[in-house]
C-alpha cells in the first residue's frame, strides 16, 4: 500500500491516488460466476412471478449486474452494506444463500417471517442493513453505521446504493452531507440507470453527471462505467480503502441503463425511447465480461458452460427448497411478536 497523506484529499480527486491491486484470475472467475448467477436468479424469479409464486412485485436489474457484483466484491468481510431493490447481486456476493433469496421473494417464513418483501431484509451478523421503501433515509442510516465505526476507531466501511431519483430527496441530501461533514468511512454508489419509474433523470435535476453533486458536499465524485464490472470493482475498492484510511466518503456515479420496466409489472417500452434498449443491449455487462475472460484466457467456453450448469443446479435446488419452505406462522400472537425486545 502506498503511504497515504494525513490530510484530506482535495475535492477533485480522480482514480490513481490509491492504488488498487489487480484482481487475481480466480477472483475474476468468481466475478463471472456472480454476474451470471445474478442474472439467472432474476430470470428465474421473473418466471416464478408469472407463475404467481413470487408475490407482490419483482424489481430486476437486468443490465445493471456489474454495479452490484463489482462493488460488493470490493468490500472486506467486516464491512457493512445496505442493498436497495436492484442490488440482488450484492447480496449474493456477500453470502446470502440462494435458498433465502427464493424464500424471501416467495413470502415464506425464511428469512424474516414474510414481514417485508423483495430486498427489504437484513442480517446484522452479516453486516447487512435492510432498506425501506421511502427513499433517501438509508443514506444517513449507513452514515450512522460508519459513524459508529469511526467512534470506535474500527477500520470498517459502510456502503450503500442509491438510484438517480433518490438523489432528489431531502433525506438523501441530509444523509450525504452529514456523512461528509462528519468525515465518516462511508461510500455511496449512485446507480444512474436513467429512469426512476417513468421519470427520466433529465426531469430529476438539471445536472448531467450526478457525481457533480458531490462538490456540494466537499467530497470526491467519481463517474464510472457501470456496465464494466472491473471498473466498478476498482473504483469501489479505491473509495472503500480511502474511507477506511480515514479520508471520508466518496460518491460514485455508475452510469447504466434500466433495460426493463420499473418492476415486472411495468412495461418501460411505453415511455422509454426504443433506441435506448438497442444501444444498451450492446453494452451488456455480462457479455462484455465474458468476452474479457475468454480473451484473457481466464475461462474457456466449456468452462463458462460449466459455470452455467452449476448455476442451474444451484438455482433448482434452492427453488425446490424454497417451495417446500413453510409460510410464516399466521396467528395473532406470532404476528404481534417482535415489536419490542420484551416480546
Amino acid at each position, binding site marked *: 500500500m502506498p503511504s497515504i497523506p494525513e490530510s484530506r484529499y482535495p475535492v477533485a480527486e480522480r482514480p490513481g491516488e490509491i492504488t488498487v491491486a489487480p484482481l487475481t484470475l480466480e477472483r475474476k472467475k468468481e466475478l463471472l460466476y456472480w454476474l451470471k448467477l445474478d442474472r439467472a436468479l432474476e430470470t428465474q424469479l421473473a418466471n416464478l412471478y408469472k407463475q404467481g409464486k413470487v408475490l407482490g412485485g419483482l424489481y430486476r436489474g437486468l443490465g445493471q449486474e456489474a454495479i452490484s457484483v463489482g462493488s460488493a466484491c470490493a468490500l472486506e468481510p467486516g464491512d457493512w452494506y445496505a442493498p436497495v431493490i436492484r442490488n440482488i447481486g450484492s447480496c449474493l456476493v456477500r453470502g446470502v444463500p440462494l435458498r433465502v433469496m427464493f424464500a424471501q421473494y416467495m413470502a415464506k417464513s425464511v428469512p424474516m417471517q414474510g414481514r417485508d418483501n423483495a430486498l427489504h431484509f437484513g442480517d446484522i451478523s452479516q453486516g447487512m442493513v435492510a432498506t425501506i421503501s421511502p427513499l433517501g433515509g438509508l443514506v444517513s442510516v449507513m452514515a*450512522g453505521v460508519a459513524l459508529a465505526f469511526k467512534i470506535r476507531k474500527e477500520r470498517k466501511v459502510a456502503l450503500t446504493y442509491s438510484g438517480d431519483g433518490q438523489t432528489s430527496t431531502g*433525506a438523501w441530501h441530509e444523509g450525504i452531507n452529514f456523512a461528509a461533514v462528519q468525515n465518516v468511512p462511508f461510500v455511496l454508489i449512485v446507480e444512474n440507470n436513467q429512469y426512476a419509474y417513468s421519470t427520466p433523470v433529465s426531469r430529476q435535476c438539471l445536472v448531467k453527471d450526478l457525481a457533480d453533486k458531490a462538490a456540494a458536499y466537499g467530497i470526491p465524485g467519481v463517474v464510472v462505467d457501470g456496465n464494466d464490472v472491473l471498473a466498478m470493482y476498482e473504483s469501489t475498492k479505491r473509495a472503500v480503502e480511502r474511507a477506511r484510511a480515514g479520508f471520508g466518503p466518496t460518491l460514485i456515479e455508475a452510469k447504466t441503463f434500466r433495460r426493463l420496466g420499473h418492476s415486472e409489472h411495468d412495461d418501460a417500452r411505453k415511455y422509454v425511447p426504443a433506441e435506448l434498449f438497442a444501444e444498451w443491449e450492446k453494452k451488456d455487462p455480462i457479455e462484455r465480461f465474458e468476452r474479457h475472460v475468454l480473451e484473457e484466457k481466464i475461462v474457456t467456453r466449456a468452462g463458462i458452460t460449466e459455470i452455467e450448469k452449476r448455476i442451474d443446479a444451484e438455482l433448482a435446488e434452492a427453488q425446490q427448497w424454497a417451495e417446500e419452505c413453510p409460510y410464516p406462522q399466521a396467528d395473532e400472537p406470532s404476528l404481534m411478536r417482535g415489536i419490542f425486545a420484551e416480546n
Partner: protein
Amino acid sequence: MAVMTYLEALRQGLWEEMEKDERVFLLGEDIGVYGGAFKVTAGFTERFGEQRVIDTPIAEAAIVGAAIGSALAGMRPVAEMQFIDFIACAFDQLTNMAAGTRWRWGAGVPMVVRGPSGGGVHGGPFHSQNMEAYFFHTPGLKIVQPATAYDAKGLIKAAIRDEDPVLYFEHKYLYRRIKEDVPEHDYVVPIGKAALRREGGDVSIITYGSMVHVALEAAAQLEAAGVQCEVIDLRTLMPLDEEAILTSVAKTGKVILLHEDRRTGGIGGEIAAIISEKAFEYLDGPIVRVTSLDTPVPYSPPLEAVYMPNVDKLTRAVKQLVAY
C-alpha cells in the same frame, strides 16, 4: 441526595450513563460547544470529547437516521431535537426506518431521541408542541414523559439502556421550575410503569408531563371541597401501564384524562377506549377528557391560557363529573 432542578436531574442522568457506557454518545444541534439550547449538555464536550458529543448540521432526518445506523452497529446514541416540534422532520426515519426494524428483520435499534416539549413559555406554535400522538400510533416506538426531577433522571437512564427506540419527551416548562431531592447514585425508573401521585376515592385523574402538577394543585383545592382525587402519572405513554389505569378506574368509577396535547387524536382518546373496553362495568359516569384545544399553540399569553388546560378548567371538570 441533592436538591436539583428537573433539568439538572436529566443532565446528571445523561452524564452518568456516558461515564458508565462508552457506547453512549450524543448528537444534535448546538449541543457540544454551546452546551445545548437549554444547557442540558453544558460541559459534556469538555468531559467526553467531540467524538461523543457531536454538533450536527441542521438535519433532523439525518440526525435520527445516523442515530439509527449507529445503533444498528452497536452504539447507544442519544439524539437531541432542539425543540421537539422539529421531530416532524424526522418522521420518516422514526416511523418507517426505526419503529418497525425489529419487527421487520429482527434488528434492535437501541437509540434515544429526546427534546424539550410542551408550552406555557410563550414559545408559539413551533416551540411548544406535544408530539407524542404521532408516534404513539406507530408500533415499535417507546415514549416516555417524566413529570418529576426524580423521573427525569431515572427515565433517561432507562431509555438509554432500553434495547428499542425510545422517544424521551422532556417538558421545557418544568426544566427549572421544579426542584426536588434527587438521589445522586445510579437508579432507573422502569419504562412502562405509571406512578400513583395521589390517592383518592372519588375520581381518577390520569395524566402525564407538566399536567401532573396541574392535577396535584387542583386535587389540593378539590379536597377542601370534599372531593378526593386520585392522580396517576403515566410516565410512560407507550407502552401504557394499563393495569394502573384500570385499577384506579375500578376504584373510583369516574375518570378524567388530562393532557396538554390537543384533544382530537390525543392519546386520551385511546385511553378512554381502553377503559371503555376493559373497565366498562366499573364506570359510574362518562369518561371525560381535559385537553388543549384543536388549534396550533398560540403565542400571546392570554391566548395560550385559553388554549391549555389549567387548574380552573380541571377543577370544574372534576366537579361536574363527580356530580354525575
